[in-house]
Every structure is written in structure tokens, then in C-alpha cells.
């Protein structure tokens, strides 16, 4: 089975070790017998989104994220078409915020209807436990997510968040709304930074199942499972 992965802006939207997401996904797919190709594509290169089964973009500094928006603008329609065609698309950290109408005065990719306000003087940081919303649960995933959020943005309200905030020293999408991220079809957007597929093995498994279908076989990812349990327990004490 051939699976094609796109790691978008791999060299500058990779601020918090996000390379781990792609390395882990590639390794697990190979272990399941898939023939995996990973294309790392960046500024100056043309992404053909429809070619891929999985599209990923991680976090960057605010400058680099603005650079990513400018780079991706000409391809926004294609990315939207890929999302509408049920491709699995994961944008983490501040990457998913590019897909709205605006970031401050700058145009976003206008794929989804929301606005982002950034205040560089206010960083919202903290460890997080996030609980899947009904929209995410419909993908057969109900365990809490763990991770870290590090941003300076507020996202206007939307209807289908990915999570309810259980623990986060700071906020979700916007102050006190206790909602985080965005899910639409197979698009997953969350402010969680870093290798979230490593830290949340249940999420990785869900993606493996989506990608592999009947070819998927249950495996034991004991290091990731134990790391997840320990982090969840540490965070739950706080």
C-alpha cells in the first residue's frame, strides 16, 4: 500500500520539535507494511496537495508563520480542495491559524471563517490537558490529549472546536471560552505544539487507521503509551 505524506514548510514551521510527528508517522506506517513517501516541501516549491494522503504543518515564530501565509496564498484553493476531498490534514501550533480570514491586518488563507488577533506582548503558555469534543469523538477518539501551548493569539469563536479545555494555564482559542482548536471533515487544527502524534499515541493510532483502513493491525507502542500516562498523571496533579 502506497502512502504519501507532505511535511509542509518543514524547515521553518518546525519550532518545537515538530519533525517528531512526521518521523513517528513514517516509522509506524512502515512497520505496518505501507510503502511510505515523505515529501518535505518549502518556500519556493509547489505543493500538489491532491497527491498526498496526509498533509502536515507545524509551528513557527510569528515572522515565519507570516512567511508561510505568503508562501501558501497562491495554493490556498488547492489546500481547501484537498480538505474538502477528505484528505487528512493536521496543522498544529500556530499553523492552523493561517487558515482563517485574517491575522491582525494580514489576510489569511481564507479557507475557514474565523479571525485571529495577535498581541506579541502577551504570550499564552502552559501545559495542557484537552478533552475531545463531540466532533472529534465522532472520529472514535475519546482519550484526553496532553501537550503544551505557546502562542500570543486569540481566535474568534467557531462552531466545531477540537477540544474542551480541561487544564491549560492560559486559555483556549479565546479567553475563557474553554474551547480549543478546530475540526472539519479530516482537518485537525490545534494550538498544541511539538510532536503531538508522539505524545498522544491514541491520536497517532486514529490517523494510522484512517490511512491504512483494513490494512491496519493493532500494535503496542509501549514507550509512547507509558510516556503519555506519566505526563497525563503529572498534569492531572496540577
Amino acid at each position, binding site marked *: 500500500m502506497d502512502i504519501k505524506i507532505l511535511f509542509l514548510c518543514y524547515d521553518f514551521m518546525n519550532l*518545537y*520539535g515538530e519533525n517528531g510527528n512526521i*518521523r513517528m508517522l513514517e516509522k509506524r506506517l512502515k512497520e505496518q507494511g505501507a510503502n511510505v513517501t515523505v515529501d518535505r516541501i518549502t518556500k519556493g516549491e509547489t505543493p500538489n496537495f491532491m497527491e498526498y494522503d496526509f498533509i502536515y504543518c507545524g509551528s513557527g515564530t510569528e515572522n515565519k508563520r507570516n512567511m508561510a501565509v505568503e508562501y501558501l496564498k497562491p495554493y490556498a484553493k488547492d489546500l481547501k480542495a484537498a480538505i474538502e476531498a477528505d484528505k487528512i490534514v493536521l496543522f498544529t501550533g500556530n499553523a492552523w491559524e493561517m487558515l482563517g480570514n485574517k491575522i491582525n491586518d494580514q489576510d489569511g488563507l481564507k479557507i475557514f471563517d474565523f479571525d485571529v488577533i495577535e498581541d506579541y506582548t502577551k504570550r499564552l503558555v502552559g*501545559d495542557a490537558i484537552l478533552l475531545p469534543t463531540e466532533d472529534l469523538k465522532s472520529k472514535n477518539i475519546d482519550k484526553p490529549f496532553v501537550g503544551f501551548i505557546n502562542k500570543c493569539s486569540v481566535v474568534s469563536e467557531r462552531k466545531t472546536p477540537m477540544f474542551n479545555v480541561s487544564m491549560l494555564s492560559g486559555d483556549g482559542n479565546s479567553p475563557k471560552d474553554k474551547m480549543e482548536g478546530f475540526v472539519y471533515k479530516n482537518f485537525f487544527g490545534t494550538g498544541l505544539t*511539538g*510532536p503531538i502524534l508522539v505524545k498522544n499515541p491514541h491520536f497517532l493510532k486514529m490517523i494510522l487507521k484512517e490511512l491504512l483502513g483494513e490494512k491496519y493491525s493493532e500494535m503496542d507502542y509501549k514507550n509512547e503509551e507509558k510516556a503519555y500516562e*506519566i*505526563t497525563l498523571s503529572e498534569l492531572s496533579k496540577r
Partner: protein
Amino acid sequence: MKKIKIFLAVILCKTIHFLAGLLGRGSSIPGAITLKIFPDILSLITLPEKVVAVTGSNGKTSTVEMIAHILKAGGKTVAYNKEGSNQIEGVTTCLLCNSTLSGKVKSDVVLLESDERFARHTFKHFHPTDYIITNLYRDQLTRNGHPEWVYGVISESIYPDTRLILNADDPLVSKFGYGREGTLYFGADHVSFDSDTNDSIYHDGKYCPVCGEKMEYEYFHYNHIGKYKCTSCNYHRMDTTWSLTDADLKNGTITINNEHTLSLPFSSLYQCYNTMAAFAAAEICGVDANVAISAMEQFHLKSGRIMTFDLKDGEKTVSGTLLTSKHENSISYDQSIRVVTGTEKDTTVMIIVDAVSRKYFTSETSWLWDIDFEMLDSDNVKRVVLAGKYCYDLASRFAFTGISEDKIGIYETVAEGAKDFAASNTDEHFVVTCFSDKGKFTSLENVTVTGGV
């Protein structure tokens, strides 16, 4: 009125400092209390002709300690803030406790380590004459923010009447001097063990910090530190006033400005930048170069974050070295790993991640994916022990290094890890961990620290 205010503030700060000293409390409290009552006190005191500030991600404290040591050797009196008091409160304590009752700082030089995030608050009240910026790395991103954000907040602490002294080899640091007359630079020339490629996990110098287009490097010293040039706007590494012109890894010597050679045990140029910054500071403060060089050699003899230990395992005693890195700081880890792989002998290495920070809580382990642990996949590394609460996060990461699973031991406690570590029969044993966790190893019953600091 102003005179009385200064008088009272100095008395108050010195008194609290004395009392806090009796209680063994930190050096921030006197300044903190004084600032509550006299918030503008820093703008009222009289500073000496030279006020040197040092900031950056890694090595601030070492650099300041080294500069202080050199200045003293050069016959200067120096007021400087000690580790942990590098925010406005600590600076206030330092300045007022070194002042006369009329608010005149008594020393020839004021030397300040400045927290990179809070320098803007301190230097609102007075401006350093010379401001040394060493490096901007991914460092404790959970607390500090990313390097470009830190760049922004440091910018707010820089005024026109301050002269900048910058690391030319760090493209983001060097940008502080972009278009700024009178800026001076230190850095390293091309040396034999430089690399043509950046082989670390990420490359923070790939895009120009000025225009965002691609940069090209002639060579890399390590990570994104090297000789760069933008392909579009011509932003480039600046010529240096203080240059490391030669470095001999085998004999442990470096040469500055083709003229001064000093002994300095090091494993990469990483450790040499503190020395270069200190040499620059010595010269601008008027210390003779030869005096500075010999002072720097002495300083290295009694410093360094390397510790040797004996670990008892039944009848057997294993002698090893503990390398202190910083958690959440991949460049500092890369450096320690380079020391481990630099030895050609058979080696066992134990990596401990138990508390991510000693100052605050976080379970964030993403930074493990920025560290080039792949370097440990080397013939002479015979065993790897991963220990501490986050040993499984480490294990996850190590599954990608190419090191075979049977060479890796995983333990939730440091004590269990130490057993495996001691049982491994190799010539060398290294422990790599952070300030926050090293005590958990050195305080084990069967461990004796034998040297280092």
C-alpha cells in the same frame, strides 16, 4: 529632596541586604523592596564611566564571572550581580549595595548579567555603555518564548547611547547591529573542524533574519553558528574586532587575533564564545591583553560545568564524568553529546530527564526532538541508559537514533538507571543531564563526587 531619597534608598537596600544575608536569602529581595518604595531609584544613582551588560541565551553567568575575574586581575574594582539576580531587583541590589550614601557606585566598572527577557525593564532607568550579546538559541521555550520573540524584547532594552558588542557568527544576534554605526563584533574565523553543512536536527539560520530569503553558509562552527550571507539582501556576517583565529582541539589551545594563544580545554567552538566575549570586555575596559589572557587561563582552571565522580557497584568502582547541559536547550545537549562521542574509547552514557526545570513545572518534552541524539549511534558508545520520570519520552526519541534496542536501558528512577550504568564495562562513563536533575545522581549513596565544580 533627591539627595535624601538616594540616601534613604541606599541605607534601606544595604540594611535589608545585611539582614537577608543573615537569613541566607537571595540577593533580589533587597532590591525588590527598595524598588517598591523608590521605583525610580536606578535613574538617580551615579554610575562609573564603564557600565558593561551581558545578555543572551547560554553562558551569561560564566561570561560575567570570567569578565569580573579578568577585570580584577587587571587591577579594576568591579560591581557585578551574581547568578540568579539578573533581573531589575538583583541589579538594584548590586548597584545600591556598591554605592556611597550619596548614590555613587564606588567601583571602576559596573558589570551586569541581564536576563534577556527583562533587560528592557532594567535599562529603562539607565543605559549600559557597552552591551554584549552572546547568542540566541532555542532555550526554555516554555518560559522564555522563541529566539525571534526574545530578539524583540532585547531590542526594547537597546538605546542609541549604548555601544553593542555582538557575536558576529550568530545571524540573529548580529542583526542588532544591522545599520547601527559603531557596533563591534567578536567571532571565530574558519577553523579546521568546521563543517560545510549544518548536520543538526534543525537550522535556525536557513532564512535571513532581515528579509526572510534564503541564506548561504560558507561554513558552520556548530548548529546555525558560522559564516553566512543572505542570497537576496546581502545581509552577512560582519568583520570582527576580536577573532578566534586558530583552535587546536587536540592540544586544547585557541589563538585570538593571531597573537594570543591560551590553553582552554574545549570540545567545540561553543565554549570559546564566552572567552571571546570576555576578551572583548577586557579590552574595552582597558585591561592589558596579556593580563587578560593569563587571567582567562586561570579562570578556566577553576571553572567549568564538568564534574567527575566515583560510582560504587559492589566491589567495583566506576569512575565517570557528569556533563551539565540545560534541559529545553538542544544546543547545550548537542554540545555535551559531542564531548561523549569525542572520546574514542568505549563509552557508556546515562541521560537523565526527571524534572524538566528546577524553577517551574512543565511536562514538556518536545525539545528532545531537536537534539541530535543520532550522534550517539557510534561504535564506541556501547550502552545508553535513559533514566528519570521522562525516560519513556527519551526512549521514544531514541527509537529513531539507529541505536539498537538491546543497547538501551530504560528506568523510571535514577537509582535503578545507575545500577545498569555501573554494570556496563566500558572505559568511559558519562552522565548527561541538567542542573535540575544532576543532584539526583550525585546524591545517590554509592556516588562520590571527586572533582570539578
